[in-house]
């Protein structure tokens, strides 16, 4: 079975993730990549990011996800995303703290393109959100999101919580909040903290097995991995337990290795733990 056939048959997910960089202005308690302002950048250059999008489209993938670190710390990010969005729709995961005041203009190149910003918001109140994500994070997000929506950008809200810890009331209040911004329930996802990176050091999150993670292909500067949750960092060292290949381009090299791994899975091993 070719990679394209596997995607069409649903054997392989149709999205490729790209880790654009690993540094971040925040230092969240559960960060899988131990990102912080002091992190090694591990940036994937723009030419490679665009090449990944091209080759992904040729192989039959249908969507690109960009994550980090905080992608918008890169000055070339918006132009790079715009170039990628000419090839495939792109979802960018961001903490939305770089869009205050006039700085929101950095998103100009993305307006009108098939680009979706996925923004983290973990609670309907500042205190519990900021406890995990840092001072003033809640205020910055609630300031940025409606202005991004007003500019015509599609925004999705991601709530990351300790498994089972989001009360029905808080869930409902979060939904009321995003609906006031014109964001549908379909564009709000709730996902568990996974015990990797800083979450492992702080004792947070759910332990998981490889086969509980969707086998999405994720590429970073240092290799290609099984799932967007593969290229994690522990003690400033890149994890390798979900490493597929060090080669990222040609993308067919890790994509076909991923397919081989997926096809070799025992039957019934595709249960997942609700991660999107």
């Amino acid at each position, binding site marked *: 079975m070719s990679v394209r056939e596997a995607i069409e048959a649903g054997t392989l997910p149709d999205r490729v993730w790209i880790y654009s960089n690993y540094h971040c202005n925040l230092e969240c308690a559960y960060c899988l990549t131990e990102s912080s302002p002091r992190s090694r950048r591990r940036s994937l250059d723009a030419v490679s990011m665009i090449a990944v999008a091209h080759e992904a489209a040729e192989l039959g993938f249908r969507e690109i996800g960009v994550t980090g670190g905080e992608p918008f710390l890169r000055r070339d990010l918006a132009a790079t995303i715009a170039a990628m969005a000419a090839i495939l729709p792109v979802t960018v995961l961001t903490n939305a703290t770089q869009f205050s005041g006039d700085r929101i203009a950095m998103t100009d190149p993305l307006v009108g393109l098939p680009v979706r910003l996925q923004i983290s918001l973990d609670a309907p109140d500042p205190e519990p959100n900021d406890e995990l994500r840092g001072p003033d994070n809640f205020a910055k997000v609630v300031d940025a999101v409606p202005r991004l929506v007003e500019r015509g950008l599609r925004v999705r809200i991601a709530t990351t919580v300790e498994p089972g810890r989001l009360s029905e009331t808080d869930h409902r209040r979060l939904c009321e909040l995003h609906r006031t911004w014109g964001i549908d329930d379909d564009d709000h996802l709730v996902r568990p903290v996974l015990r990797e990176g800083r979450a492992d050091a702080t004792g947070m999150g759910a332990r998981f097995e*490889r086969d509980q993670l969707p086998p999405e292909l994720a590429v970073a500067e240092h290799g290609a991995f099984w799932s967007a949750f593969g290229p994690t960092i522990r003690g400033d060292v890149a994890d*390798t*337990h979900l*490493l*597929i290949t060090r080669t990222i381009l040609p993308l067919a090299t890790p994509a076909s290795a991923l397919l081989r*791994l997926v096809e070799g899975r025992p039957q019934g091993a595709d249960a997942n733990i609700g991660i999107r």
Partner: protein
Amino acid sequence: MALVDLIDAERAPLLVAHLYENGDPGPIASALAQVPELCEVALPFLGASLGPGATGVRLKELVILRTSARLECRYCVAAHTAVALDVGLGLDEVHALRDDDDLDAAFADPRERALLAWIDAVATGRGPVPAGVTAAMRERFDDHEIVELTNCIGVTMLLNRFCTALDLPVGASVAERLTSEGFDIR
């Protein structure tokens, strides 16, 4: 300590995780595991090149130990001193292959002497192999044997330089055994 991080079982990349199923796969595989797509094709190739073949384990070990000694690879000399003894080479033969003793005194068989001259010429020479050495080899070995043994020399050289450059550590059990049997761990 090796120059690079030797990947342990807990961090084994997916394509090569099976190598760790029966315990530590050793420093060569653990270093190659840094690049799984390379490791998964290199190890079977190394196994086919250095393992049992048409020429038999004695000649293969003679090639590997002699080549490693000439290239002064501490790791491969130690590991294959142990393997050579295990597959039945005599103590005097092993010492001679390691250059501890005289090679001519330990090997009388003309076929093995032709091979030893071939190993030394291929592993340490530059340019064409001297005509006399080539002629002796052709007289005593079939084409497929020459190919298998010459490939074994080349692959051993690759590993010698790989292990030496990366400063791969000799396993504690091998070091202990060789010391107890009077070998010098160079």
